[in-house]
């Protein structure tokens, strides 16, 4: 019905400008039953298929339609849903009676659609392309997923995707490695021809608004996506300009198609359960570890010395670990709590989608509704998404058609509470919280009450919230809130006009509006701070809006001169305008969690807001020439300007060229039967990357904190960067596509080399003789990514009952820094308050040196070689590089030192590289890097009659990870609980272990060494689906045309040697340019079992 209403409305619009003259009448009936088709449409079309007049069949099965004057070559078109369209030439006849044929009796129409050539926006078909692209047709029904990234993981070669387990969180996507140090490395998403804004503007305060909010812009339901294409080389991404420098993912949403109205409904129910957690010590093991730690420290210092007194006091007088029945919290400190269990749960999710689609001669439409309700295994994490999509295409005539895409998404995400102060997740806190403590108060019967036990204890062993972020993780997951509501509206209008047979115009306007609202609340039951503290009932209120407008004007000339020569010329002009605004307030001392408004009389801790605007425009010319259908030549030039650079460096020009040869079609080869397709592609091109942020080049004047006497004092706080340039990556790609056995086996191999120059460096130190210590941006340095990728599919077997097909991809990327100003970057991998990695290495426990060094890849880390544990005093004597003992002036042997501290038996033994008897920064060596050497995935489909088995595997190999989680659980340095591995710690000579002795607050037993660097290679069985499609015969009886049941298991099994919970570890967001992979105990991927039903009618 809906279709009809729309068509009628459109007809009414059109009618208003036409003048009726002659009237045509007649009847419309079903060809077989001869029943009148009430409501069928009748149009008068001119030679261009433009509708001049329309009418509908009335209740008597008759119609009346006016025929416009002065028109020749008219056609009368009869159409009705579910019937084949009928066209009759109008030659002045007064009456036309139409008999229409039921479409279900004919399948011809469907075949026409299937033959439709897959072309890009320049009208170049896949066969003719010279660039490296890969396309995935999404059939969500076969492998149900909740997010786009999930769907793509492991499916495309060299599209490296790492997802996170918490619902609604952002995934890390890298196409062919990282080509930039400070620019964005995220690929561009283009939905229905319009780019999406997915970068986080630099003006947004990352400490309060986390990047996940921006990922929600991407929350398109996978159910609405028809296909995804990845563009990798410069020839392919050229037209998307600088935003596509890191690769482009083209997403095409589903559209309606001609034919009877179709309904489909799918539902899914899912259970998630976490795997086994890292086992930690129980109460008694914990207490004895603590006593061991303290004793060792006391012994090192000497029992009767004053420095030992603090430890003696802790050992003998601390009521938290001593069995002291007089202690007022005796009950609360003498339990055995599995904190990990208290903050996790088994989660349930559901996903429901409904869509209807159809179309006729003039219009196609698709309406889709979806509701997702996802709960995480970490208590308090949740994601709800409602989405509505309406896509419509309308053909006015052969010359003019328009299409419109509307999408509305509303999402709500609950995450664990985090802010700048809390450096651990509730999961991390649960690992280290003392196990003898209870999360709740205990009543006199020894039973838990419902009141959280978060007391303020003087000299608390684990510190306070303000000093060491010590808090009650159980209270946090239940009581603290961190909710982000985001609404997104996306509208795209495309107008296509055919000026001439070979000359087309496309005009596109895209509008994307997002509004986010975040509310966070940290009640005092979590922190236990005094009411005067700035953390007392802390709340944060933040909003941010993104307005994004794009336009595109495209002219296309496509001329087939004769059978052997074809020319395509395309011109394109685009603009983008992005406006961001944000507002954040943090208040404390709120009287209740419901009051978070900064105006309600609490203490305002901070207020901030921001507004920024960026613009981008580009003009683009592309030529494509095709000889003999075998030789293709491409050339293009893109001119682009971005408002983030000064007028001088704002315009960039980026050329591309490419050639392809379909050698399989050469006569010499076309006779053989084995190879059915063969194509060689070669392309070269350049892409640019602009500095991120709205006004990075602008110099700013600011007032000094105080004036000078009566004089006002103002100073230029930053330099205006007129020399800022584009970071340019030149990309070379060689590709080979082969098809064998009538294309049943398809293979595609690509080799590439991407070389980036004028690397954008952020916050570069400059000589202080300039009056500044640093500039915001500076272009210098070179980097290279080389690699290869191979993907293929094999349709192994197919008959009436059986189908067996396989697909796979494997790729390798190698990153190398070629040139960078010396000493520009080095750090210790520790996090600083500004959210970046510290810029210098400090000798200390847990610190890894990280540097960007020419010759080494990005993401390299450096540290000490751990040799185990000193077993006895003899071993602790220092030896020089010749293996001889080092003696002091008195002739007695020198004892090794870790930093400033002498080692004792049981301490960690590091390799003394320079043989000077002291372990310090001069003993640091290269330990590995965070880049995987191989990534890939494979899958298969086996069908027997109505039952299918579908499996997808995903793997990464060779990346090294700093297992920070393990480091925190094995350091035995303070009052934190530790993993059960520490039960094998060194206690006496002869203990064969890598784990040193426990030492409270002293020593260097967990320096950043290879002990915590692990190989995180893995292969994961990502999904395994069993599907049963009910036989057509049966369901047709019920009025259905499709009914499938399926059961899918996600993350069923992982093959890995990694000791942490999940080897799928994203690069640390705080490691800045060092790009380190650190395992910080994030939620591991749970085992998920989903049951689903798909219906079509």
């Amino acid at each position: 019905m809906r279709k009809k209403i729309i068509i009628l409305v459109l007809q009414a619009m059109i009618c208003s400008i036409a003048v009726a003259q002659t009237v045509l009448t007649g009847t419309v009936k079903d060809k077989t039953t001869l029943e009148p088709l009430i409501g069928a449409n009748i149009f008068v079309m001119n030679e261009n298929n433009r509708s001049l007049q329309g009418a509908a069949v009335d209740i008597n099965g008759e119609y009346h339609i006016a025929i416009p004057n002065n028109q020749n070559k008219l056609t009368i078109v009869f159409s009705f849903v579910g019937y084949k369209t009928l066209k009759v030439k109008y030659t002045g006849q007064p009456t036309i009676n139409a008999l229409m044929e039921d479409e279900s009796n004919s399948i011809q129409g469907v075949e026409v659609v299937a033959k439709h050539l897959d072309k890009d926006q320049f009208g170049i078909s896949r066969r003719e392309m010279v660039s490296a692209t890969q396309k995935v047709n999404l059939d969500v029904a076969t492998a149900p997923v909740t997010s786009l990234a999930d769907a793509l993981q492991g499916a495309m070669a060299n599209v490296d995707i790492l997802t996170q387990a918490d619902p609604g969180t952002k995934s890390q996507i890298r196409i062919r490695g990282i080509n930039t140090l400070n620019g964005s490395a995220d690929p561009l998403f283009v939905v229905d021809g319009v780019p999406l804004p997915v970068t986080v503007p630099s003006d947004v305060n990352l400490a309060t608004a986390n990047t996940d909010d921006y990922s929600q812009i991407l929350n398109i339901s996978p159910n609405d996506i028809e296909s995804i294409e990845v563009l990798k080389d410069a020839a392919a991404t050229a037209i998307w300009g600088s935003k596509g420098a890191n690769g482009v993912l083209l997403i095409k949403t589903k559209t309606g198609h001609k034919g009877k109205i179709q309904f489909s409904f799918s539902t899914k129910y899912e259970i998630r359960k976490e795997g086994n957690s890292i086992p930690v010590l129980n109460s008694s093991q914990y207490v004895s570890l603590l006593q061991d730690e303290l004793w060792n420290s006391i012994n090192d210092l000497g029992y009767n010395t004053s420095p030992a007194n603090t430890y003696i006091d802790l050992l003998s007088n601390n009521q938290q670990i001593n069995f002291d029945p007089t202690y007022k919290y005796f009950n609360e400190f003498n339990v055995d709590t599995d904190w990990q269990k208290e903050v996790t749960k088994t989660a349930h999710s559901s996903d429901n989608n409904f869509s209807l689609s159809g179309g006729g001669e003039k219009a196609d439409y698709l309406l889709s509704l979806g509701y997702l309700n996802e709960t995480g295994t970490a208590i308090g994490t949740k994601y709800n998404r409602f989405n509505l999509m309406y896509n419509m295409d309308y053909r006015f005539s052969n010359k003019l058609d328009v299409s419109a895409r509307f999408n509305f998404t509303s999402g709500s995400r609950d995450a664990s509470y985090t802010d700048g102060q809390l450096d651990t997740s509730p999961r991390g806190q649960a690992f280290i919280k003392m196990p003898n403590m209870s999360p709740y108060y205990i009543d006199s019967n020894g039973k838990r009450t419902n009141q959280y036990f978060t007391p303020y204890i003087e000299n608390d062993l684990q510190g306070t919230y303000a000093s060491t972020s010590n808090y009650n993780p159980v209270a946090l997951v239940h009581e603290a809130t961190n909710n982000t509501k985001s609404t997104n509206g996306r509208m795209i209008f495309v107008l296509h006009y055919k000026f001439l047979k070979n000359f087309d115009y496309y005009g596109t306007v895209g509008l994307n509006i997002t509004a986010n609202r975040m509310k966070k609340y940290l009640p005092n039951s979590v922190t236990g701070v005094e009411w005067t503290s700035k953390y007392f009932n802390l709340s944060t209120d933040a909003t941010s809006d993104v307005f994004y407008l794009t336009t595109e004007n495209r002219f296309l000339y496509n001329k087939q001169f004769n059978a052997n020569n074809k020319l395509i010329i395309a011109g394109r002009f685009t603009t983008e305008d992005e406006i961001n605004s944000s507002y954040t307030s943090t208040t404390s001392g709120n009287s209740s969690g419901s009051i978070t408004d900064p105006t309600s009389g609490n203490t305002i801790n901070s207020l901030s807001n921001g507004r920024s605007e960026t613009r981008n425009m580009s003009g683009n010319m592309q030529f494509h020439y095709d000889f003999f259908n075998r030789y293709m030549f491409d050339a293009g030039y893109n001119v682009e300007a971005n408002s983030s650079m000064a007028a001088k460096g704002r315009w960039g020009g980026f050329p591309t060229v490419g050639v392809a040869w379909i050698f399989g079609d050469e006569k010499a080869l076309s006779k053989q039967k084995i190879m059915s397709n063969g194509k060689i592609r070669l392309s070269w091109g350049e892409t640019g990357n602009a500095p991120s942020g709205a006004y990075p080049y602008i110099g700013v004047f600011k007032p000094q904190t105080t004036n000078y006497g009566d004089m006002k004092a103002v100073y230029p706080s930053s330099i205006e960067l007129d020399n800022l340039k584009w970071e340019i990556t030149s990309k070379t790609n060689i590709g080979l596509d082969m098809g064998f056995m009538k294309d049943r086996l398809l293979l595609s191999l690509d080799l590439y080399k991407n070389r980036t120059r004028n690397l954008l460096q952020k916050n570069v130190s400059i000589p202080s003789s300039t009056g500044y210590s640093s500039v915001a941006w500076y272009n210098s340095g070179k980097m290279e990514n080389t690699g290869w990728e191979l993907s293929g599919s094999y349709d192994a077997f197919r008959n009436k009952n059986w189908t067996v097909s396989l697909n796979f991809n494997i790729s390798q990327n190698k990153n190398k820094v070629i040139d960078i100003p010396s000493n520009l970057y080095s750090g210790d991998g520790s996090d600083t308050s500004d959210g970046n990695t510290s810029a210098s290495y400090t000798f200390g426990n847990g610190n890894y040196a990280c540097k960007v060094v020419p010759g080494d890849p990005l993401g390299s880390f450096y540290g000490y070689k751990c040799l185990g544990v000193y077993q006895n005093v003899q071993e602790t004597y220092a030896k020089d590089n010749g293996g001889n003992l080092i003696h002091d002036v008195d002739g007695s042997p020198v004892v090794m030192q870790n930093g400033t501290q002498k080692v004792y038996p049981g301490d960690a033994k590091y390799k003394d590289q320079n043989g000077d008897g002291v372990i310090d920064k001069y003993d640091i060596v290269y330990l590995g890097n965070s880049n995987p050497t191989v990534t890939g995935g494979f899958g298969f489909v086996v069908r027997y009659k109505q039952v299918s088995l579908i499996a997808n595997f995903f793997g990464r190999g060779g990346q090294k990870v700093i297992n920070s989680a393990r480091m925190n659980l094995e350091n035995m340095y303070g009052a934190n609980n530790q993993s059960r591995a520490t039960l094998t710690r060194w206690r006496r000579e002869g203990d064969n272990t890598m784990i040193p002795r426990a030492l409270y607050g002293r020593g260097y037993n967990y320096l950043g060494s290879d002990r915590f660097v692990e190989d995180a290679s893995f292969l994961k069985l990502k999904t395994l689906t069993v599907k049963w499609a009910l036989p057509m015969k049966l369901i047709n009886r019920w009025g259905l045309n499709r009914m499938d049941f399926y059961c899918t298991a996600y993350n069923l099994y992982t093959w890995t040697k990694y000791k942490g919970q999940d080897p799928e570890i994203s690069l640390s967001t705080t490691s800045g340019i060092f790009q380190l992979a650190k395992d910080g105990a994030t939620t591991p991927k749970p085992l998920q079992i989903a049951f689903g039903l798909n219906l079509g009618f």
Partner: protein
Amino acid sequence: MNKIVKYILVTILMGTALSSCSLTLLPEDEQTSQKYWNTKEEVEAVLGSGYYYLRSSVEQTFMWGEARGNGISFLSSGDTYTAAGLKLRQMDILPSNTLTDWGGMYKVINMANSVIKYAPSVVEKDASFNESVMKSYLSEAYFQRALAYFYLVRTFKKVPYVTEPYVTDKNPYKIPQSDGDSILNACLNDLKGSLESAKEYFPETDVSNSINSKGRATRWAITSLMADINLWLGNYNNAINECDSVINSGRIGLISGSSWFTNFFPGNSNESIFELQYNYDLGQTNSFMTWFYNGASTYYEPSSYSISLYSDEDIRGENATYYNGLFWKYAGRDQAGTTRLSTEYDQNFIVYRLAEIYLIKAEAEIMADQPDNAANDINTIRNRAGLSSISSSSSKSTMLNVLLTERQREFCGEAKNWFDLLRIAHRDNFTTYKSMIIEQIVLWSGSANNEALIRSKLNNGNAWYLPINATELERNTLLKQNEAYENL
């Protein structure tokens, strides 16, 4: 139908045109450099920043002038500058020492360079900004720049000579070092040229506020700086003339006898020529009480050698320069032992006062073979302090020693001591007076061990200057380390 097509086309093109009208977008909540330099007030505010940075470098310039030499002693660990200064005193100087960071002075230079470059163009834009006011601003900027370079050259010998502002990145960040003498000659030229337009005082503003006559560079401040630089460069006759011009200006006079202390409280006295201003009421306070008068935690105290220089009749001695072994000139309200109120913790830092002009003149006269004139000028200062006159001597060394001692008494703790010693020692390329000055320095060296170290290290002329900061060397590859520190 065709109309519809046209309308749609026009709409799309309009949308395109509107969204792409300009690629120069400016933030709405910040003062961008593209929109600066339009009014007189904006020029003056940057000039204000130049003084601001001079003032915020006070502890560093104090340490440059006092850490080595014999004027002060360090008692507690204090702050980072104290710790760094102590290393200087112990001749344990590494390129990583905080005091080798010259960034503060270059901030002053950048402000001055900005004013010099942009102020002339503002005259056309702002009707209230006339040529003569603009030129007087320029003279202040030249003064700021010259003073900063004078500090740098005396401390590092060879430094990058930057004369273009870094408001945009037009100029290269890396600039090689220039010879100190040529920098100072260029500065002298600037000062000479600007002298004409410099203000004798600042009549258009509130005269009762002494910042306007003592806190900004007047013609007399500029002349004094020129005299000082000329003395350093060995242009003795120029120095004498410039001193005369200040002494005879009619705007500044010596404060006699017991009023000497008003130089420090309330400050901005008749004798004062240029002081870096603090003002409690305007929120411009300092930490002088912590540095100089904080009981056992005091950072800097007069050395016992300094205290030993004062005789009983010297009005600058006990209860004036020092009290209870601590610096009273920065702490007292009067010579009766009343300390400053907490609302008076805004002691100025004196750069030039007339007494120094007399002594600069005297030193120039000694070097220009006019010992009688020199003795006269020294006696002017001695007599007003209640001391008897001295007679002249034909020996330059004798006269220089008398002069040096007089300077030590007059300016104890005013960041002059080391520069005085260095100025005399560096004459004739560290030949004639070097050993004499080393003897002066070891008069108060802390310990015998230290004494030997000072003697041996200072034997090398380059060791009298500080090394180039290690970080700076890394960032500016065109720099060359001072030869005395090359192997560190």
